[in-house]
């Protein structure tokens, strides 16, 4: 399966620089490091409190987590399509794909807010126990990244609609897209760790 996917008929040359502005990649690597350390901290803390973590984990609504995974994966796909569109010079299509991604991002935030609301109503706070501390820190921190990513994508979308990008000059789309895919990547790890693995 993996082979079939990587067999790109375009035969695009390897050895390209990172997509988008290098500055965003410094930020992406910094953020990935923070999340990586947080994930490891979660896992090792859990190994000292397995029962507490397993019991608390069961109180989470995994359906929310799954729905949010689908939303982010699809929005990431939309962003990838937006990049394809601009590479063929279609500004409007690029904008539309980005708007779609933004819509899915907004749905993600809405769903997460509902989930937070229900958590707080049940008395879950940062100080409730170690699991909830990690759960809330990780998801809130990620939530902020989604919000930040949406601001970036919105700026890129507006520029796309305004025709500021061309098939040859579209670094902005790549920059915003790379950040958004990082947010998606982090959620994939976060979903597995906090909602699924037990």
């Amino acid at each position: 399966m993996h082979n079939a996917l990587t067999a790109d008929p375009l035969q695009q040359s390897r050895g390209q620089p990172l997509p988008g502005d290098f500055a965003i990649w410094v930020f992406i690597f910094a953020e990935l490091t923070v999340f990586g350390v947080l994930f490891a901290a979660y896992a090792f803390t859990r190994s000292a409190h397995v029962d507490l973590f397993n019991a608390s984990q069961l109180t989470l609504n995994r359906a929310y987590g799954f729905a949010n995974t689908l939303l982010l994966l699809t929005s990431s796909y939309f962003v990838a399509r937006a990049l394809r569109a601009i590479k063929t010079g279609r500004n409007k299509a690029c904008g539309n794909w980005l708007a779609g991604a933004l819509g899915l991002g907004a749905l993600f935030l809405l769903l997460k807010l509902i989930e937070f609301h229900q958590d707080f109503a049940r008395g879950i706070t940062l100080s409730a126990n170690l699991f909830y501390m990690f759960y809330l820190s990780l998801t809130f921190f990620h939530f902020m990244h989604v919000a930040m990513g949406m601001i970036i994508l919105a700026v890129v979308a507006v520029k796309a609609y305004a025709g500021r990008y061309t098939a040859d000059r579209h670094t902005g789309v790549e920059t915003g897209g790379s950040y958004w895919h990082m947010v998606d990547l982090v959620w994939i790890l976060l979903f597995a760790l906090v909602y699924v693995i037990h």
Partner: protein
Amino acid sequence: MQEVFTKSMARNIFLGSAVFFLIIYLALTYDTWQQIPVRDHADKITASVIRGKYLVDTNDCIGCHTINGEGSYYAPELDNVYKRRGPEFIKLWIPAQPSGVAGRRQMPHFNFTPAQIDDIVAYLQWLSNVDTNHWPPNIEG
């Protein structure tokens, strides 16, 4: 293809991360602000405790001592001194200073009234009950 690395994007990253992490810190601070009165028994901050704290501040006790590890490392920790020494010892100790022992670190004489010393002890008692995540490690501070 040439790598793109622009100053304007670097600046945006700088400003963006400033705002981003400030918001996160403010959100956490909001939560902390709700928790602190619970953890330090703010309901037990009586008028006497407040007077005691004012004396501790205006006599610059942290110029030699530490309070919850903050201050100066010239004299012992005050967070748990109430539990370490007990109120009676403290009430006798403060007015008896300086000890005048040659070479030993000296604590000044502050001319406190007995009522003022009671206030200081009340403050130290309140301080000893703050939840500091089990710090200091033992009674010696």
